[in-house]
C-alpha cells in the first residue's frame, strides 16, 4: 500500500468533498440565470460561499472564488497594484524573500512590464521575515508602496510568519496587505475580521486580502478563493459578465464550490484536533529522522508552534534530495524535494538559499508533509524505508560531485 506524505503538494479529497462534487455535477443551472434551475444553482453556490467564508472569518460577499490559489494570488497582487496607481504613483511592492513562485513571478512580471519596484526583505535562518526591515521600509516609503504581500506560512519549510505583527505595521502605515495562506489553510486558523480588528486596520489598509486553495484541504483541484475585505478595492484580471462583485467574471463552478465547501466545513469542525494530531505525528517523524540520520538538519523553525503542524523539512548533507525521493518512491513512500519543478526539472530551492543555505545544502532537501488522513502507520513506513534510502543516497551523492570514472 503506497504511503502518501506529500500533502503540501496536494491532499487526498475528503469523502464528503467527493460526495458533494458528484452530487452537484448531476444538476443543471447557471447561477446567473433567472429561471428556477438558475435559482437552484445560485442557492447552492451562495450556500457554499457562506460556508467557505465562515471558515476564513469573512462575510460571504468578501469571498471571491477563483480557478486556483495561483489565480487568487495574481488577482490580489496585480489587482491591488493596479488599483493603487489610480490616485498616486506607488511603484513599490514589498515582500519577504522565499515567497512562492505564484508571487515571485507575478511581481517580476509587474517589474518587467509596468515598472514596479520589487522590495525584497530578508529572511532569518529559520525562514522568518525580518520585521524590523519591514518597519523601516514602511517608515521610509509608505506613500510609494502599492502593497505588501507575504506567505502566512512557508509552503516548503513550514515556517509560520509573524502575521499579526505585519498586519499591525501595514495597518499603521495605511498600506494594504495580502497574505498567501495556501499552505496555512487547513493547518492553522486563517481568517480576516478578527485579525483586522486586532491590528487596528482602517478601510482599505492593513490586511485586505487572503488567498487559499481547495485542493490543499481535501477539496478538488481547480478552485481557489480570494478573501477580499469589503473595504479593499481591486482591479479585476478577468473581465466579462460582471460576476462576483465584478472582481472575477466568468460562469461560476457550482459543483466545485460545493465540494470546496464540504472540505472547508470538515476542516473547520476539526481544525484544532487535526492540527494537534498532525503535530504529534510530525514530532515523531522528526525524532525518527534524527535517529536514522543524526547529521540531517531540520529546516525552518524547530519550535513546534513556529511551523506548520504537517510540515517536516530536512537537508541531508551529502545526499541529493532527488535520489532520496527516487529511493523512497521505489519503496512505496511519496515525498517531495519541496522545490519548484518545471516538467520535473529540479532546481535548488530559492527558499533555502534565502535562508542562507548553500546550493549544495539545498540540493539535499527533502520535504515530508502530513495531512488530514495521515496516520502513525504512514510515519512508521517512512521511517522504516529511510535508513536504506539514506545509505544509498549518500553513496550516490558522492557520484554527483566526482566519480571513480573520472580520469
Amino acid at each position: 500500500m503506497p504511503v502518501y506524505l506529500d500533502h503540501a503538494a496536494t491532499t487526498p479529497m475528503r469523502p464528503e468533498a467527493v460526495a458533494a462534487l458528484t452530487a452537484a455535477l448531476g444538476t443543471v443551472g447557471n447561477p446567473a440565470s433567472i429561471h428556477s434551475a438558475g435559482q437552484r444553482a445560485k442557492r447552492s453556490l451562495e450556500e457554499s460561499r457562506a460556508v467557505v467564508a465562515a471558515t476564513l472569518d469573512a462575510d460571504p460577499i468578501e469571498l471571491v472564488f477563483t480557478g486556483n490559489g495561483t489565480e487568487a494570488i495574481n488577482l490580489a497582487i496585480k489587482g491591488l497594484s493596479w488599483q493603487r496607481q489610480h490616485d498616486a504613483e506607488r511603484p513599490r511592492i514589498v515582500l519577504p524573500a522565499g515567497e512562492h513562485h505564484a508571487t515571485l513571478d507575478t511581481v517580476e512580471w509587474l517589474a518587467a512590464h509596468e515598472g514596479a519596484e520589487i522590495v525584497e526583505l530578508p529572511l532569518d535562518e529559520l525562514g522568518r521575515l525580518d520585521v524590523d526591515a519591514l518597519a523601516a521600509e514602511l517608515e521610509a516609503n509608505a506613500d510609494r508602496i502599492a502593497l505588501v504581500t507575504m506567505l502566512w506560512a512557508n509552503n516548503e519549510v513550514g515556517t509560520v510568519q509573524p502575521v499579526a505583527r505585519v498586519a499591525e505595521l501595514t495597518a499603521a502605515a495605511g498600506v494594504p496587505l495580502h497574505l498567501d495562506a495556501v499552505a496555512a489553510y487547513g493547518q492553522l486558523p486563517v481568517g480576516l475580521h478578527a485579525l483586522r480588528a486586532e491590528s487596528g486596520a482602517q478601510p482599505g489598509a492593513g490586511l485586505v486580502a487572503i488567498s487559499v486553495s481547495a485542493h490543499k484541504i481535501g477539496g478538488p483541484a481547480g478552485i481557489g478563493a480570494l478573501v477580499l475585505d469589503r473595504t479593499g478595492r481591486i482591479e479585476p484580471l478577468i473581465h466579462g459578465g460582471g460576476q462576483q462583485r465584478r472582481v472575477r467574471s466568468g460562469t461560476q463552478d457550482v459543483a466545485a464550490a460545493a465540494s470546496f465547501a464540504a472540505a472547508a466545513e470538515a476542516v473547520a469542525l476539526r481544525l484544532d484536533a487535526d492540527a494537534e494530531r498532525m503535530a504529534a505525528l510530525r514530532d515523531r517523524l522528526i525524532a525518527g529522522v534524527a535517529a536514522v540520520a543524526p547529521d540531517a538538519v531540520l529546516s525552518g523553525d524547530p519550535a513546534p508552534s513556529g511551523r506548520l503542524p504537517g510540515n517536516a523539512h530536512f537537508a541531508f548533507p551529502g545526499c541529493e534530495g532527488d535520489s532520496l525521493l527516487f529511493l523512497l518512491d521505489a519503496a512505496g513512500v511519496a515525498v517531495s524535494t519541496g522545490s519548484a519543478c518545471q516538467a520535473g526539472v529540479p532546481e535548488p530551492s530559492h527558499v533555502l538559499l534565502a535562508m542562507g543555505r548553500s546550493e549544495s545544502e539545498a540540493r539535499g532537501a527533502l520535504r515530508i508533509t502530513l495531512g488530514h488522513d495521515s496516520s502513525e502507520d504512514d510515519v512508521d513506513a517512512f521511517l522504516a524505508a529511510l535508513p536504506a534510502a539514506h545509505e544509498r543516497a549518500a553513496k550516490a551523492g558522492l557520484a554527483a560531485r566526482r566519480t571513480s570514472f573520472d580520469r
Partner: protein
Amino acid sequence: MSGGVDSAVAAARAVEAGHDVVGVHLALSRMPGTLRTGSRGCCTIEDSMDAQRVANLLEIPYYVWDFSERFKEDVVDDFVAEYTAGRTPNPCMRCNERIKFAALLEKALALGFDAVVTGHYAKVLPGPSGELELHRASAEAKDQSYVLGVLTAEQLAHAWFPLGDTPSKELVRQEAERRGLAVARKPDSYDICFIPDGDTKGWLADRVGETPGDIVDRTGAVVGSHDGAHAYTVGQRRGLRLGTPAPDGRPRFVLEVRPKENTVVVGPKEALATAEIAGSRFSWAGLDPVASGLVGADGEDFECEVQIRAHADPVPAVARIDRGGEGAAELVVRPTQPLDGVAPGQTAVVYVGTRVLGQCTIDRTVSAVPVGA
C-alpha cells in the same frame, strides 16, 4: 531518455527483455527551452514530455535527474576553454565521458541499478578472452562508436546499447511506430544541444568576446586581420578576407589557430595534410593493444584505422604508444595517406576492423609538408 526515438526504442527493448527499467531524463540546463525548435531533438520541456509519454506507454517509472551543474563544468565550460585554447572540442564525447557514463552511471550504480541503457548505435561484444569490446553498429550510416570511444572497460561493463544490431535507423523508426511510440517520426538532432540556434561562432563570441588580430602565413608575414581567433577552425577556407594575395594566387586555408598570440595561420591546401597525430590523453575501450595481442610490447607499431570526426571515413594507419622518456606517454598515429583538416582538440579514435581499440585527444599534429617545402 532524451525524448528522441532511439532512446525510446532502446527503453522498450530493455523492458521487453524483462529488466526492471526506470526511465531517466537528464536535465542539463537550468534554463531549458519550452518548445522544440529547428533540428534539435532533446533538452527542451517538450522533449522531456515526449520522453515521459514513452515511459508511460512502457509503464515504467520516469524521473528527471539534474546534472546541469556538472554538465556546465565538464562539458560547456570545457567547450569554451578548448576553443579559447585554439582547439576544436567534441562536446558530445565529453558528455558521454563525463556525464552519461560517469556521473549518471555512478549515481545509477549507487542507487542499485546494474546498467545504463542508451539509444546509441554501437555494440558491446565479448572478445576472444571474454573481455568486453566496443564495436561499430550494424547500421553503418548511424554508427556512433566514435563518440563512445572514450569509454573504458569498467564503463562498458555497465553499458547496454540495444540498437547496436539493428541494420538501419529506419527500422528503429518502424519499430517505434509498431509499438505506438509518438516519437517514431521525430526529427534527429544534429546541433550542439546547448547552442540552440546552431550559431557556434556567435555563441562563443558572447562568452569570450572578440579581439581583432592578425592573419599570418607560415613564414609569419601578416596577410590579413580577423575579428576573433576562436571563430576560425583548421581547414577553413571561406571568410578569411585576406588583404594580401598569395604569391602563387592560389586559395589559402586555415592551418592553425594560435590563441596566445591571437593569430590565425594560413597556407596552401597541401600544408593541411597531416602525417602524424599524437595525444597524451588516451584511453582503451576494453583491453589495451598489448593485452589484445596486437603488439608484443609497448613501443612497437600496430596496424589500425583512425577516424578523426564523428562522420569522417576511417583511414588505414599505424599507431604506437610512445612512453616518451621524461614526458607523458603518448598515443602516436600515422595515417598511411596524409589526413586533411586535423585540429588539436579533436578526438582520434583508433579501430581494428569494427572494434574500437581506444582514443586520444589530439595534442599535436605533424604536417606532411614542412615550411618552405
